[in-house]
Protein backbone atom coordinates (compact mmCIF):
# COMPACT_ATOMS: atom_id res chain seq x y z
CA UNK A 1 0.00 0.00 0.00
CA UNK A 2 2.76 2.38 1.08
CA UNK A 3 4.81 1.31 -1.91
CA UNK A 4 1.86 2.07 -4.20
CA UNK A 5 1.52 5.53 -2.69
CA UNK A 6 5.24 6.11 -3.11
CA UNK A 7 5.06 5.05 -6.76
CA UNK A 8 2.17 7.44 -7.16
CA UNK A 9 4.22 10.26 -5.70
CA UNK A 10 7.06 9.58 -8.17
CA UNK A 11 4.61 9.82 -11.03
CA UNK A 12 3.07 12.93 -9.54
CA UNK A 13 6.47 14.56 -9.21
CA UNK A 14 7.37 13.57 -12.78
CA UNK A 15 4.18 15.24 -14.02
CA UNK A 16 4.86 18.25 -11.81
CA UNK A 17 8.34 18.67 -13.33
CA UNK A 18 7.12 18.20 -16.90
CA UNK A 19 4.11 20.50 -16.56
CA UNK A 20 6.08 23.00 -14.44
CA UNK A 21 8.69 23.22 -17.16
CA UNK A 22 6.03 23.97 -19.77
CA UNK A 23 3.86 26.30 -17.69
CA UNK A 24 6.60 28.30 -16.01
CA UNK A 25 8.67 28.49 -19.18
CA UNK A 26 5.62 29.21 -21.33
CA UNK A 27 7.11 32.26 -23.00
CA UNK A 28 10.06 30.16 -24.23
CA UNK A 29 7.93 27.31 -25.44
CA UNK A 30 5.30 29.37 -27.18
CA UNK A 31 7.17 29.02 -30.48
CA UNK A 32 7.20 25.22 -30.15
CA UNK A 33 3.49 25.14 -29.30
CA UNK A 34 2.80 27.52 -32.16
CA UNK A 35 4.75 25.35 -34.62
CA UNK A 36 2.85 22.25 -33.55
CA UNK A 37 -0.49 24.07 -33.44
CA UNK A 38 0.00 25.44 -36.96
CA UNK A 39 0.96 22.00 -38.21
CA UNK A 40 -2.01 20.45 -36.44
CA UNK A 41 -4.32 23.16 -37.79
CA UNK A 42 -3.26 22.49 -41.35
CA UNK A 43 -3.30 18.73 -40.85
CA UNK A 44 -6.72 18.53 -39.25
CA UNK A 45 -8.06 21.09 -41.71
CA UNK A 46 -6.74 19.19 -44.71
CA UNK A 47 -7.90 15.84 -43.35
CA UNK A 48 -11.36 17.32 -42.83
CA UNK A 49 -11.30 18.61 -46.40
CA UNK A 50 -9.85 15.29 -47.64
CA UNK A 51 -12.78 13.36 -46.23
CA UNK A 52 -15.28 16.04 -47.14
CA UNK A 53 -14.17 16.48 -50.77
CA UNK A 54 -16.06 13.43 -52.09
CA UNK A 55 -19.22 14.65 -50.37
CA UNK A 56 -18.74 18.28 -51.44
CA UNK A 57 -17.55 17.65 -54.99
CA UNK A 58 -19.95 14.74 -55.35
CA UNK A 59 -22.79 17.20 -54.89
CA UNK A 60 -21.09 19.62 -57.29
CA UNK A 61 -20.92 16.85 -59.87
CA UNK A 62 -24.62 16.25 -59.45
CA UNK A 63 -25.10 19.55 -61.29
CA UNK A 64 -24.01 17.74 -64.45
CA UNK A 65 -27.06 15.53 -64.60
CA UNK A 66 -28.26 12.09 -63.57
CA UNK A 67 -25.61 9.46 -62.93
CA UNK A 68 -27.94 6.47 -62.61
CA UNK A 69 -30.55 5.51 -65.19
CA UNK A 70 -33.08 2.87 -64.19
CA UNK A 71 -35.00 1.04 -66.89
CA UNK A 72 -37.75 -1.55 -66.62
CA UNK A 73 -36.74 -5.13 -67.20
CA UNK A 74 -38.32 -6.55 -70.37
CA UNK A 75 -41.47 -5.05 -71.88
CA UNK A 76 -43.07 -3.99 -68.60
CA UNK A 77 -43.13 -0.38 -67.36
CA UNK A 78 -41.99 0.93 -64.01
CA UNK A 79 -44.75 1.11 -61.40
CA UNK A 80 -45.06 3.60 -58.57
CA UNK A 81 -44.32 0.78 -56.09
CA UNK A 82 -41.02 0.09 -57.83
CA UNK A 83 -40.23 3.82 -57.78
CA UNK A 84 -40.93 3.93 -54.03
CA UNK A 85 -38.80 0.82 -53.42
CA UNK A 86 -35.98 2.36 -55.43
CA UNK A 87 -36.11 5.55 -53.39
CA UNK A 88 -35.99 3.58 -50.13
CA UNK A 89 -33.16 1.39 -51.34
CA UNK A 90 -30.90 4.26 -52.38
CA UNK A 91 -31.74 6.34 -49.32
CA UNK A 92 -33.20 9.85 -49.27
CA UNK A 93 -29.91 11.35 -47.96
CA UNK A 94 -28.05 10.20 -51.06
CA UNK A 95 -30.65 11.24 -53.62
CA UNK A 96 -30.25 14.69 -55.13
CA UNK A 97 -33.03 14.12 -57.64
CA UNK A 98 -35.13 11.19 -58.88
CA UNK A 99 -37.28 11.91 -61.92
CA UNK A 100 -39.46 9.24 -63.59
CA UNK A 101 -40.18 9.79 -67.29
CA UNK A 102 -43.15 8.57 -69.29
CA UNK A 103 -42.90 9.15 -73.01
CA UNK A 104 -46.03 9.48 -75.11
CA UNK A 105 -46.48 10.28 -78.77
CA UNK A 106 -48.93 13.10 -79.40
CA UNK A 107 -49.98 15.06 -82.43
CA UNK A 108 -49.72 18.79 -82.80
CA UNK A 109 -51.13 20.15 -86.02
CA UNK A 110 -51.30 16.53 -87.22
CA UNK A 111 -47.54 16.17 -86.77
CA UNK A 112 -46.14 13.64 -84.25
CA UNK A 113 -44.15 14.86 -81.25
CA UNK A 114 -42.93 13.22 -78.05
CA UNK A 115 -44.30 14.42 -74.76
CA UNK A 116 -42.35 13.53 -71.63
CA UNK A 117 -44.33 13.31 -68.42
CA UNK A 118 -42.14 13.72 -65.36
CA UNK A 119 -41.91 15.03 -61.83
CA UNK A 120 -40.81 18.50 -62.88
CA UNK A 121 -39.41 19.48 -59.46
CA UNK A 122 -37.21 16.37 -59.41
CA UNK A 123 -36.20 16.87 -63.04
CA UNK A 124 -35.06 20.38 -62.13
CA UNK A 125 -32.91 18.97 -59.32
CA UNK A 126 -31.43 16.43 -61.73
CA UNK A 127 -30.71 18.94 -64.46
CA UNK A 128 -29.92 22.36 -63.03
CA UNK A 129 -27.72 22.99 -66.09
CA UNK A 130 -30.71 23.20 -68.49
CA UNK A 131 -31.17 26.69 -69.79
CA UNK A 132 -34.85 27.61 -69.42
CA UNK A 133 -36.28 30.63 -71.13
CA UNK A 134 -39.25 31.48 -68.95
CA UNK A 135 -39.65 29.22 -65.96
CA UNK A 136 -39.79 25.61 -64.94
CA UNK A 137 -43.27 24.09 -64.98
CA UNK A 138 -44.65 22.77 -61.72
CA UNK A 139 -47.55 20.74 -60.42
CA UNK A 140 -49.46 23.85 -59.26
CA UNK A 141 -50.37 24.73 -62.86
CA UNK A 142 -50.51 21.47 -64.78
CA UNK A 143 -51.42 23.12 -68.07
CA UNK A 144 -48.24 25.20 -68.06
CA UNK A 145 -45.57 23.12 -69.78
CA UNK A 146 -42.02 23.42 -71.08
CA UNK A 147 -41.20 22.81 -74.72
CA UNK A 148 -37.85 22.01 -76.22
CA UNK A 149 -36.14 24.76 -78.22
CA UNK A 150 -36.39 22.67 -81.43
CA UNK A 151 -40.16 22.21 -81.08
CA UNK A 152 -40.64 25.86 -80.19
CA UNK A 153 -38.86 26.82 -83.42
CA UNK A 154 -40.77 24.32 -85.57
CA UNK A 155 -44.15 25.33 -84.16
CA UNK A 156 -43.15 28.96 -83.78
CA UNK A 157 -44.09 28.87 -80.12
CA UNK A 158 -43.23 31.65 -77.71
CA UNK A 159 -43.67 32.01 -73.98
CA UNK A 160 -47.38 32.26 -73.09
CA UNK A 161 -48.54 30.70 -76.41
CA UNK A 162 -51.05 27.86 -76.25
CA UNK A 163 -51.11 24.81 -78.45
CA UNK A 164 -53.23 21.70 -78.66
CA UNK A 165 -52.03 18.14 -78.31
CA UNK A 166 -54.02 15.17 -79.47
CA UNK A 167 -53.51 11.45 -79.15
CA UNK A 168 -54.94 8.02 -78.48
CA UNK A 169 -55.58 6.98 -74.89
CA UNK A 170 -53.63 4.20 -73.32
CA UNK A 171 -54.77 0.75 -74.52
CA UNK A 172 -57.05 2.15 -77.24
CA UNK A 173 -56.74 1.73 -81.00
CA UNK A 174 -56.38 4.74 -83.23
CA UNK A 175 -59.05 5.13 -85.87
CA UNK A 176 -57.57 6.49 -89.05
CA UNK A 177 -59.22 9.42 -90.81
CA UNK A 178 -61.15 8.30 -93.81
CA UNK A 179 -60.40 9.92 -97.14
CA UNK A 180 -63.98 9.60 -98.18
CA UNK A 181 -65.29 11.11 -94.94
CA UNK A 182 -66.17 14.73 -94.46
CA UNK A 183 -64.02 17.04 -92.28
CA UNK A 184 -66.75 17.11 -89.63
CA UNK A 185 -66.92 13.32 -89.51
CA UNK A 186 -63.15 13.10 -89.27
CA UNK A 187 -63.17 15.65 -86.44
CA UNK A 188 -65.77 13.55 -84.64
CA UNK A 189 -63.46 10.55 -84.92
CA UNK A 190 -60.56 12.57 -83.47
CA UNK A 191 -62.60 13.65 -80.46
CA UNK A 192 -64.12 10.23 -79.92
CA UNK A 193 -63.88 8.35 -76.56
CA UNK A 194 -60.61 6.58 -77.39
CA UNK A 195 -58.79 9.84 -78.10
CA UNK A 196 -57.65 12.73 -75.96
CA UNK A 197 -56.87 16.33 -76.67
CA UNK A 198 -55.76 19.20 -74.47
CA UNK A 199 -54.65 22.80 -74.76
CA UNK A 200 -51.34 23.53 -73.11
CA UNK A 201 -49.57 26.82 -72.40
CA UNK A 202 -45.84 27.39 -72.89
CA UNK A 203 -44.23 28.48 -69.60
CA UNK A 204 -40.66 27.66 -70.52
CA UNK A 205 -38.48 26.87 -73.53
CA UNK A 206 -35.76 24.30 -72.85
CA UNK A 207 -32.27 24.65 -74.36
CA UNK A 208 -29.74 21.95 -73.56
CA UNK A 209 -27.93 21.37 -76.82
CA UNK A 210 -29.15 17.77 -76.56
CA UNK A 211 -32.11 15.53 -77.27
CA UNK A 212 -34.22 17.33 -74.65
CA UNK A 213 -34.83 20.15 -77.15
CA UNK A 214 -37.14 17.80 -79.09
CA UNK A 215 -39.50 17.06 -76.16
CA UNK A 216 -42.44 18.64 -74.45
CA UNK A 217 -42.13 18.35 -70.68
CA UNK A 218 -45.33 18.04 -68.66
CA UNK A 219 -46.36 16.90 -65.20
CA UNK A 220 -46.48 13.10 -65.22
CA UNK A 221 -49.73 12.91 -63.23
CA UNK A 222 -51.41 15.22 -65.68
CA UNK A 223 -50.18 13.04 -68.54
CA UNK A 224 -51.45 9.89 -66.82
CA UNK A 225 -54.89 11.48 -66.38
CA UNK A 226 -54.89 12.67 -69.95
CA UNK A 227 -54.13 9.30 -71.45
CA UNK A 228 -56.36 7.54 -68.93
CA UNK A 229 -53.75 5.35 -67.29
CA UNK A 230 -52.09 4.82 -63.96
CA UNK A 231 -48.41 5.66 -63.33
CA UNK A 232 -46.16 3.73 -65.71
CA UNK A 233 -42.68 5.14 -66.26
CA UNK A 234 -40.38 4.23 -69.13
CA UNK A 235 -37.25 5.30 -67.28
CA UNK A 236 -36.14 6.83 -63.99
CA UNK A 237 -33.25 9.27 -64.00
CA UNK A 238 -31.48 9.45 -60.66
CA UNK A 239 -28.87 11.84 -59.41
CA UNK A 240 -27.13 10.06 -56.53
CA UNK A 241 -24.29 11.30 -54.32
CA UNK A 242 -21.91 8.40 -54.85
CA UNK A 243 -18.66 7.56 -56.58
CA UNK A 244 -18.25 4.81 -59.17
CA UNK A 245 -17.81 2.07 -56.56
CA UNK A 246 -20.80 3.14 -54.53
CA UNK A 247 -22.91 3.40 -57.68
CA UNK A 248 -21.86 -0.07 -58.67
CA UNK A 249 -22.85 -1.36 -55.23
CA UNK A 250 -26.19 0.44 -55.44
CA UNK A 251 -26.77 -1.01 -58.93
CA UNK A 252 -26.07 -4.53 -57.71
CA UNK A 253 -28.43 -4.04 -54.81
CA UNK A 254 -31.19 -2.76 -57.09
CA UNK A 255 -30.81 -5.75 -59.42
CA UNK A 256 -30.94 -8.10 -56.47
CA UNK A 257 -33.75 -6.53 -54.47
CA UNK A 258 -35.98 -5.02 -57.19
CA UNK A 259 -35.87 -7.51 -60.07
CA UNK A 260 -38.33 -5.46 -62.12
CA UNK A 261 -35.71 -2.74 -62.53
CA UNK A 262 -32.55 -2.59 -64.57
CA UNK A 263 -30.03 0.01 -63.33
CA UNK A 264 -27.36 1.58 -65.59
CA UNK A 265 -24.66 3.85 -64.15
CA UNK A 266 -23.71 6.76 -66.40
CA UNK A 267 -20.03 5.87 -66.68
CA UNK A 268 -18.95 9.06 -68.41
CA UNK A 269 -19.98 11.09 -65.38
CA UNK A 270 -18.96 8.74 -62.60
CA UNK A 271 -15.55 8.11 -64.09
CA UNK A 272 -14.80 11.80 -64.57
CA UNK A 273 -15.96 12.41 -61.03
CA UNK A 274 -13.68 9.71 -59.69
CA UNK A 275 -10.67 10.97 -61.66
CA UNK A 276 -11.11 14.56 -60.45
CA UNK A 277 -11.75 13.45 -56.87
CA UNK A 278 -8.77 11.10 -56.92
CA UNK A 279 -6.45 13.84 -58.14
CA UNK A 280 -7.73 16.35 -55.62
CA UNK A 281 -7.42 13.89 -52.77
CA UNK A 282 -3.90 12.98 -53.85
CA UNK A 283 -3.01 16.68 -53.88
CA UNK A 284 -4.45 17.19 -50.39
CA UNK A 285 -2.62 14.10 -49.17
CA UNK A 286 0.66 15.36 -50.62
CA UNK A 287 0.26 18.76 -48.97
CA UNK A 288 -0.59 17.01 -45.69
CA UNK A 289 2.56 14.91 -45.83
CA UNK A 290 4.66 17.99 -46.62
CA UNK A 291 3.08 19.85 -43.68
CA UNK A 292 3.86 16.91 -41.41
CA UNK A 293 7.48 16.87 -42.53
CA UNK A 294 7.81 20.65 -42.06
CA UNK A 295 6.24 20.38 -38.59
CA UNK A 296 8.63 17.58 -37.73
CA UNK A 297 11.64 19.66 -38.82
CA UNK A 298 10.31 22.60 -36.86
CA UNK A 299 9.83 20.52 -33.70
CA UNK A 300 13.26 18.97 -34.20
CA UNK A 301 15.00 22.35 -34.35
CA UNK A 302 12.98 23.65 -31.41
CA UNK A 303 13.87 20.62 -29.30
CA UNK A 304 17.52 20.93 -30.35
CA UNK A 305 17.49 24.54 -29.19
CA UNK A 306 15.71 23.53 -26.00
CA UNK A 307 18.30 20.89 -25.13
CA UNK A 308 21.14 23.32 -25.87
CA UNK A 309 19.49 26.05 -23.81
CA UNK A 310 18.89 23.69 -20.90
CA UNK A 311 22.29 22.04 -21.00
CA UNK A 312 23.10 23.27 -17.48
CA UNK A 313 19.80 22.03 -16.07
CA UNK A 314 20.36 18.63 -17.67
CA UNK A 315 23.94 18.54 -16.33
CA UNK A 316 22.64 19.38 -12.86
CA UNK A 317 20.09 16.57 -12.99
CA UNK A 318 22.82 14.18 -14.01
CA UNK A 319 25.06 15.50 -11.25
CA UNK A 320 22.26 14.84 -8.77
CA UNK A 321 22.29 11.23 -9.90
CA UNK A 322 19.69 11.14 -12.67
CA UNK A 323 20.28 8.43 -15.22
CA UNK A 324 20.27 9.44 -18.88
CA UNK A 325 17.02 7.63 -19.59
CA UNK A 326 15.27 9.44 -16.75
CA UNK A 327 16.32 12.87 -18.01
CA UNK A 328 15.39 11.84 -21.55
CA UNK A 329 11.98 10.67 -20.38
CA UNK A 330 11.38 14.08 -18.82
CA UNK A 331 12.23 15.87 -22.06
CA UNK A 332 10.12 13.43 -24.07
CA UNK A 333 7.31 13.98 -21.56
CA UNK A 334 7.52 17.67 -22.32
CA UNK A 335 7.41 16.81 -26.02
CA UNK A 336 4.30 14.70 -25.49
CA UNK A 337 2.63 17.52 -23.58
CA UNK A 338 3.59 19.98 -26.32
CA UNK A 339 2.07 17.60 -28.86
CA UNK A 340 -1.13 17.31 -26.84
CA UNK A 341 -1.52 21.07 -26.39
CA UNK A 342 -0.53 21.94 -29.97
CA UNK A 343 -2.65 19.11 -31.38
CA UNK A 344 -5.72 20.10 -29.35
CA UNK A 345 -5.43 23.75 -30.36
CA UNK A 346 -4.85 22.68 -33.96
CA UNK A 347 -7.96 20.48 -34.17
CA UNK A 348 -10.29 23.36 -33.48
CA UNK A 349 -8.39 25.90 -35.56
CA UNK A 350 -8.20 23.27 -38.31
CA UNK A 351 -11.96 22.84 -38.33
CA UNK A 352 -12.38 26.61 -38.60
CA UNK A 353 -9.88 26.57 -41.48
CA UNK A 354 -11.67 23.70 -43.24
CA UNK A 355 -15.05 25.36 -42.69
CA UNK A 356 -13.86 28.59 -44.28
CA UNK A 357 -12.31 26.73 -47.22
CA UNK A 358 -15.49 24.75 -47.70
CA UNK A 359 -17.73 27.81 -47.50
CA UNK A 360 -15.55 29.79 -49.91
CA UNK A 361 -14.86 27.02 -52.41
CA UNK A 362 -17.98 24.87 -52.29
CA UNK A 363 -20.44 27.27 -50.72
CA UNK A 364 -21.41 24.65 -48.15
CA UNK A 365 -20.58 24.05 -44.50
CA UNK A 366 -18.99 20.90 -43.11
CA UNK A 367 -19.59 18.77 -40.07
CA UNK A 368 -17.08 18.64 -37.23
CA UNK A 369 -15.47 15.22 -37.07
CA UNK A 370 -15.07 14.41 -33.37
CA UNK A 371 -12.82 11.48 -34.21
CA UNK A 372 -10.28 14.04 -35.48
CA UNK A 373 -9.57 15.18 -31.90
CA UNK A 374 -7.90 11.95 -30.70
CA UNK A 375 -6.41 11.26 -34.14
CA UNK A 376 -4.78 14.69 -34.52
CA UNK A 377 -3.51 14.68 -30.94
CA UNK A 378 -2.13 11.15 -31.34
CA UNK A 379 -0.45 12.07 -34.65
CA UNK A 380 1.15 15.18 -33.19
CA UNK A 381 2.28 13.41 -30.05
CA UNK A 382 3.89 10.80 -32.32
CA UNK A 383 5.46 13.52 -34.50
CA UNK A 384 6.77 15.43 -31.50
CA UNK A 385 8.21 12.31 -29.93
CA UNK A 386 9.77 11.20 -33.23
CA UNK A 387 11.22 14.68 -33.85
CA UNK A 388 12.54 14.82 -30.27
CA UNK A 389 14.42 11.54 -30.29
CA UNK A 390 17.66 12.85 -31.81
CA UNK A 391 17.74 16.11 -29.77
CA UNK A 392 16.90 14.25 -26.57
CA UNK A 393 19.67 11.72 -27.18
CA UNK A 394 22.08 14.67 -26.91
CA UNK A 395 21.50 14.35 -23.17
CA UNK A 396 23.90 11.43 -23.19
CA UNK A 397 26.72 13.67 -24.42
CA UNK A 398 26.31 16.22 -21.64
CA UNK A 399 29.06 15.87 -19.06
CA UNK A 400 28.00 17.41 -15.73
CA UNK A 401 31.50 18.22 -14.52
CA UNK A 402 32.33 20.19 -17.68
CA UNK A 403 29.00 21.95 -18.05
CA UNK A 404 28.48 22.91 -14.42
CA UNK A 405 31.97 24.37 -14.13
CA UNK A 406 31.61 26.32 -17.36
CA UNK A 407 30.99 29.82 -16.01
Amino acid at each position, binding site marked *: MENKQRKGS*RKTFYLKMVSGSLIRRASRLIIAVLAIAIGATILSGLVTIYYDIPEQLGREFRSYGANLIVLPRGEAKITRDSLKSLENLIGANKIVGMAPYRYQTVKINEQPYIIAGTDLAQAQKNSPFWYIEGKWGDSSDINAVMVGHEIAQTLNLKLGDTFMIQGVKYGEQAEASGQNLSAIENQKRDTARQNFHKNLKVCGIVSTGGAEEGFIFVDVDMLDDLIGDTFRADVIECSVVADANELSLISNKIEKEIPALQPRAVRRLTQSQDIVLGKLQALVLLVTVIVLIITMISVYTTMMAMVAERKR*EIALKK*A*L*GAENKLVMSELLGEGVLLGVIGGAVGVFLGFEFALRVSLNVFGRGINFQWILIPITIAVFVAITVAASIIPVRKVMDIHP*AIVLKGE
Partner: protein
Amino acid sequence: MSDKILELKNVSKIYGSLKALADINLSVNAGDWLSIMGPSGSGKTTMINIIGCMDTPSLGNVILDGVDISKENAANLTRIRRNKIGLIFQQFHLISYLTAVENVMVAQYYHSMPDEEEAMEALAKVGLQDRAHHLPAQLSGGEQQRVCIARALINSPQILLGDEPTGNLDEENEAIVVDIFRRLHDEGVTIIIVTHDPEVGDVAQRKIILEHGKIVNDIDQSATFGEALKLRN
Protein backbone atom coordinates in the same frame (compact mmCIF):
# COMPACT_ATOMS: atom_id res chain seq x y z
CA MET B 1 35.27 9.16 14.62
CA SER B 2 38.21 7.74 12.75
CA ASP B 3 36.67 5.50 10.02
CA LYS B 4 38.11 6.32 6.64
CA ILE B 5 35.31 7.46 4.38
CA LEU B 6 37.57 8.48 1.52
CA GLU B 7 41.05 7.53 0.41
CA LEU B 8 42.98 8.70 -2.64
CA LYS B 9 45.98 6.49 -3.40
CA ASN B 10 48.59 7.80 -5.85
CA VAL B 11 45.88 9.52 -7.85
CA SER B 12 46.92 11.31 -11.03
CA LYS B 13 44.81 12.98 -13.72
CA ILE B 14 46.55 13.57 -16.99
CA TYR B 15 45.22 15.63 -19.94
CA GLY B 16 47.66 15.11 -22.81
CA SER B 17 50.93 16.51 -21.52
CA LEU B 18 49.28 18.28 -18.57
CA LYS B 19 49.17 16.63 -15.16
CA ALA B 20 46.18 18.22 -13.44
CA LEU B 21 46.73 15.97 -10.42
CA ALA B 22 50.06 14.33 -9.70
CA ASP B 23 50.31 11.34 -7.43
CA ILE B 24 47.89 12.52 -4.77
CA ASN B 25 47.50 10.63 -1.52
CA LEU B 26 44.76 11.70 0.83
CA SER B 27 42.63 10.16 3.55
CA VAL B 28 39.46 11.66 4.96
CA ASN B 29 37.75 10.29 8.02
CA ALA B 30 33.99 10.18 8.43
CA GLY B 31 32.82 13.39 10.11
CA ASP B 32 35.87 15.41 9.02
CA TRP B 33 35.58 18.94 7.69
CA LEU B 34 38.25 19.41 5.05
CA SER B 35 38.93 22.45 2.97
CA ILE B 36 40.93 22.30 -0.25
CA MET B 37 42.67 25.51 -1.21
CA GLY B 38 45.06 26.60 -3.86
CA PRO B 39 45.48 29.00 -6.76
CA SER B 40 43.59 28.68 -10.04
CA GLY B 41 44.79 25.72 -12.08
CA SER B 42 46.17 23.93 -9.04
CA GLY B 43 43.84 20.94 -9.57
CA LYS B 44 41.17 21.69 -6.94
CA THR B 45 38.24 21.22 -9.29
CA THR B 46 39.76 18.12 -10.86
CA MET B 47 40.15 16.63 -7.41
CA ILE B 48 36.60 17.46 -6.38
CA ASN B 49 35.23 16.06 -9.64
CA ILE B 50 37.03 12.78 -8.97
CA ILE B 51 35.87 12.65 -5.34
CA GLY B 52 32.32 13.57 -6.51
CA CYS B 53 32.27 10.69 -9.02
CA MET B 54 31.98 13.06 -11.96
CA ASP B 55 35.38 12.09 -13.29
CA THR B 56 37.83 9.20 -12.97
CA PRO B 57 41.58 9.33 -12.32
CA SER B 58 44.07 8.45 -15.05
CA LEU B 59 46.17 6.61 -12.47
CA GLY B 60 45.74 5.51 -8.87
CA ASN B 61 42.75 4.47 -6.79
CA VAL B 62 39.89 6.27 -5.15
CA ILE B 63 38.32 4.35 -2.27
CA LEU B 64 34.94 5.74 -1.29
CA ASP B 65 33.31 4.13 1.71
CA GLY B 66 35.50 1.07 1.27
CA VAL B 67 34.80 0.66 -2.47
CA ASP B 68 37.32 1.41 -5.21
CA ILE B 69 35.47 3.69 -7.64
CA SER B 70 38.43 4.58 -9.85
CA LYS B 71 37.54 2.09 -12.59
CA GLU B 72 33.76 2.38 -12.50
CA ASN B 73 31.84 3.26 -15.66
CA ALA B 74 29.69 6.38 -15.99
CA ALA B 75 26.42 4.64 -15.08
CA ASN B 76 27.90 3.17 -11.88
CA LEU B 77 29.47 6.49 -10.95
CA THR B 78 26.06 8.14 -11.36
CA ARG B 79 24.53 5.56 -9.00
CA ILE B 80 27.34 5.99 -6.45
CA ARG B 81 27.12 9.79 -6.65
CA ARG B 82 23.35 9.62 -6.17
CA ASN B 83 23.71 7.51 -3.02
CA LYS B 84 26.85 8.84 -1.36
CA ILE B 85 27.56 12.42 -2.44
CA GLY B 86 25.77 15.70 -1.82
CA LEU B 87 26.90 18.48 -4.14
CA ILE B 88 26.94 22.22 -3.48
CA PHE B 89 27.81 24.54 -6.36
CA GLN B 90 29.17 28.04 -6.54
CA GLN B 91 26.40 29.04 -8.97
CA PHE B 92 23.75 27.20 -6.93
CA HIS B 93 22.29 25.56 -10.08
CA LEU B 94 18.67 25.52 -9.03
CA ILE B 95 16.06 24.53 -11.59
CA SER B 96 14.40 27.80 -12.54
CA TYR B 97 10.87 26.48 -13.04
CA LEU B 98 10.69 24.60 -9.74
CA THR B 99 10.05 26.12 -6.34
CA ALA B 100 12.60 25.85 -3.52
CA VAL B 101 10.94 22.79 -2.02
CA GLU B 102 10.55 21.18 -5.46
CA ASN B 103 14.26 21.78 -6.10
CA VAL B 104 15.01 19.81 -2.96
CA MET B 105 12.54 17.10 -3.98
CA VAL B 106 14.32 16.69 -7.34
CA ALA B 107 17.26 15.12 -5.53
CA GLN B 108 14.85 12.80 -3.69
CA TYR B 109 13.15 11.94 -6.97
CA TYR B 110 16.41 10.82 -8.57
CA HIS B 111 17.49 9.03 -5.40
CA SER B 112 14.32 7.25 -4.33
CA MET B 113 10.95 8.85 -3.63
CA PRO B 114 10.04 12.53 -3.40
CA ASP B 115 8.68 13.42 0.02
CA GLU B 116 7.55 16.99 0.54
CA GLU B 117 7.53 16.71 4.32
CA GLU B 118 11.18 15.67 4.41
CA ALA B 119 12.08 18.34 1.89
CA MET B 120 10.41 20.97 4.08
CA GLU B 121 12.40 19.70 7.07
CA ALA B 122 15.62 20.07 5.07
CA LEU B 123 14.64 23.62 4.17
CA ALA B 124 13.83 24.32 7.82
CA LYS B 125 17.31 23.11 8.70
CA VAL B 126 18.74 25.92 6.53
CA GLY B 127 16.15 28.41 7.77
CA LEU B 128 14.13 28.60 4.58
CA GLN B 129 10.82 26.98 5.44
CA ASP B 130 9.03 30.29 4.82
CA ARG B 131 10.50 30.59 1.33
CA ALA B 132 9.75 27.01 0.31
CA HIS B 133 7.23 27.86 -2.36
CA HIS B 134 9.21 30.60 -4.04
CA LEU B 135 10.89 30.19 -7.38
CA PRO B 136 14.69 30.64 -7.50
CA ALA B 137 14.29 34.00 -9.22
CA GLN B 138 12.39 35.20 -6.16
CA LEU B 139 15.21 34.20 -3.78
CA SER B 140 18.42 36.05 -2.91
CA GLY B 141 21.81 34.50 -3.67
CA GLY B 142 22.24 33.41 -0.06
CA GLU B 143 18.78 31.85 -0.01
CA GLN B 144 19.47 30.02 -3.27
CA GLN B 145 22.69 28.61 -1.81
CA ARG B 146 20.80 27.43 1.27
CA VAL B 147 18.29 25.65 -0.98
CA CYS B 148 21.29 24.09 -2.73
CA ILE B 149 22.61 22.89 0.64
CA ALA B 150 19.19 21.49 1.61
CA ARG B 151 19.11 19.64 -1.71
CA ALA B 152 22.60 18.27 -1.12
CA LEU B 153 21.62 17.03 2.33
CA ILE B 154 18.20 15.57 1.57
CA ASN B 155 19.42 12.05 0.78
CA SER B 156 21.74 11.89 3.81
CA PRO B 157 24.96 11.63 1.76
CA GLN B 158 28.19 10.29 3.22
CA ILE B 159 30.13 13.27 1.93
CA LEU B 160 28.95 16.84 1.42
CA LEU B 161 31.06 18.25 -1.39
CA GLY B 162 31.14 21.98 -2.02
CA ASP B 163 32.83 23.71 -4.95
CA GLU B 164 33.34 27.34 -3.88
CA PRO B 165 30.04 27.30 -1.96
CA THR B 166 30.51 30.86 -0.71
CA GLY B 167 32.12 32.20 -3.89
CA ASN B 168 29.00 34.07 -5.00
CA LEU B 169 27.84 35.26 -1.59
CA ASP B 170 28.22 38.47 0.35
CA GLU B 171 29.76 38.43 3.84
CA GLU B 172 26.47 38.11 5.66
CA ASN B 173 25.31 35.15 3.62
CA GLU B 174 28.77 33.60 3.73
CA ALA B 175 28.54 33.63 7.54
CA ILE B 176 25.09 31.98 7.40
CA VAL B 177 26.37 29.23 5.09
CA VAL B 178 29.52 28.63 7.19
CA ASP B 179 27.30 28.39 10.26
CA ILE B 180 25.20 25.77 8.53
CA PHE B 181 28.38 23.80 7.76
CA ARG B 182 29.39 24.04 11.39
CA ARG B 183 26.05 22.62 12.54
CA LEU B 184 26.26 19.84 9.96
CA HIS B 185 29.76 19.05 11.12
CA ASP B 186 28.47 18.86 14.69
CA GLU B 187 25.90 16.35 13.46
CA GLY B 188 28.71 14.23 12.03
CA VAL B 189 28.42 15.07 8.35
CA THR B 190 31.67 14.75 6.39
CA ILE B 191 32.32 18.03 4.57
CA ILE B 192 34.85 18.65 1.81
CA ILE B 193 34.96 22.15 0.45
CA VAL B 194 37.02 23.74 -2.30
CA THR B 195 37.49 27.43 -1.64
CA HIS B 196 39.55 30.44 -2.60
CA ASP B 197 38.45 32.26 0.49
CA PRO B 198 41.09 31.92 3.32
CA GLU B 199 38.47 32.73 5.96
CA VAL B 200 36.26 29.86 4.81
CA GLY B 201 39.32 27.63 4.47
CA ASP B 202 40.44 28.48 7.99
CA VAL B 203 37.20 27.44 9.69
CA ALA B 204 37.63 23.84 8.55
CA GLN B 205 39.10 21.17 10.81
CA ARG B 206 41.76 20.40 8.24
CA LYS B 207 43.09 22.29 5.24
CA ILE B 208 45.14 21.05 2.31
CA ILE B 209 46.88 23.35 -0.14
CA LEU B 210 47.24 22.26 -3.76
CA GLU B 211 49.81 23.65 -6.19
CA HIS B 212 50.46 22.32 -9.68
CA GLY B 213 48.39 19.22 -8.94
CA LYS B 214 50.28 18.32 -5.77
CA ILE B 215 49.40 18.64 -2.11
CA VAL B 216 52.01 21.06 -0.84
CA ASN B 217 50.59 21.48 2.62
CA ASP B 218 48.26 19.45 4.81
CA ILE B 219 47.33 21.46 7.89
CA ASP B 220 45.51 20.08 10.89
CA GLN B 221 43.44 22.98 12.22
CA SER B 222 41.84 21.00 15.03
CA ALA B 223 43.56 23.13 17.62
CA THR B 224 42.25 26.43 16.21
CA PHE B 225 39.04 24.97 14.79
CA GLY B 226 36.71 26.20 17.49
CA GLU B 227 38.53 29.52 17.79
CA ALA B 228 38.21 30.35 14.13
CA LEU B 229 34.48 29.75 14.27
CA LYS B 230 34.12 31.86 17.37
CA LEU B 231 36.07 34.65 15.69
CA ARG B 232 33.77 34.53 12.67
CA ASN B 233 30.69 34.60 14.81
